């Protein structure tokens, strides 16, 4: 039974081997001549002063990732249904239609509340102000450079 998965195991092993092998090989083969300039962190020619205040990246990524999970789950349910759709007949179709309709409600809600909008257009006035208020690292660096 388990032997059916042997090709997958071999593929996984090969992939692992390739990844590790590449890293090791590049470590061994590349020339290693560090200079202070090469080692310094690169940000417009200056050392970064500090991490940005607030979120490290936009909260919007999070909302999108979370929406992905919700609809990921929906597809996970669709798959077994699709495999057995004929056998499940009308009852199965109604079931899955009800399920999709309910999840669609969540979709409409998120859509109308702006969860799917990317920056621009969807910012509320307060939010836009907050965004313009927040001092970012670029600003700081610019001042120092000037």
């Amino acid at each position, binding site marked *: 039974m388990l*032997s059916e998965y042997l090709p997958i195991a071999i593929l996984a092993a090969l992939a692992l081997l390739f990844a590790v092998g590449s890293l090791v090989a590049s470590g061994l083969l590349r020339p290693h001549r560090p200079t202070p300039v090469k080692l310094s962190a690169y940000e417009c020619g200056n050392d970064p002063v500090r991490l940005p205040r607030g979120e490290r990246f936009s909260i919007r990524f999070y909302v999108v990732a979370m929406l992905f999970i919700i609809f990921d789950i929906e597809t996970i349910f669709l798959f*077994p*249904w699709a495999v*057995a759709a004929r056998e499940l007949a009308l009852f*199965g179709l109604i*079931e899955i239609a009800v399920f999709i309709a309910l*999840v669609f409600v969540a979709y409409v809600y*998120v859509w109308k509340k702006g969860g799917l909008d990317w920056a621009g257009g969807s910012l509320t006035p307060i939010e836009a*102000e907050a965004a*313009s208020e927040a001092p970012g690292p670029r600003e700081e660096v610019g001042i120092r450079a000037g």
Partner: protein
Amino acid sequence: MSADQLVFWIFAPIAVAGAIGMLLSRNAVHAALFLVVNLFCIAVMYLLLEAPFLFAVQIIVYAGAIMVLFLFVIMLLGVDRGDDLREPLIGQRPLAVILAAAFVVEIAVAVRAGIGFATMAPEGFDAVNRDGNARALARVLFREYFLPFEVTSLLLIVAAVAAMVLAHRRARAVTQAELERLGLLEPPREEAPSP
């Protein structure tokens, strides 16, 4: 030792090691990666137990979605601060370890009484998995468990509302007002917002 048992004894220790690694690592990213190792080993166990569909779901849902979301949030919150590993209450740690050990012993006793350590899985699971695991699972899921199936859609709706209400927009609007009240922020400028 059969191939099945060999695979079990390769992956079970890795699973336990992954869990222990998660418990002990200071860095949240390391902990998440240890957890991924553990989840993968559990997925392999599903293969041994002839549940290939769940193997796929485990990889797709846990490794593909849940752990990515975890890493996202870790990045959002910052990786540079490690967890404080000091004991919050003196004696809490040893007590917790004793409780966990007692739990394992309890499981062992119950399993020994209820199943027996030598009892093999019965033959004939191929008949159960007729036409493939996913299809066989669908037959059970969509006929005997159709009500729980529909109830899960409610969970998804609540989750969507939660993400929008708690993490999306408003938090910032309130924060702005509160910042002003606390005098932590200068009043809003007249300039147009940045693009």
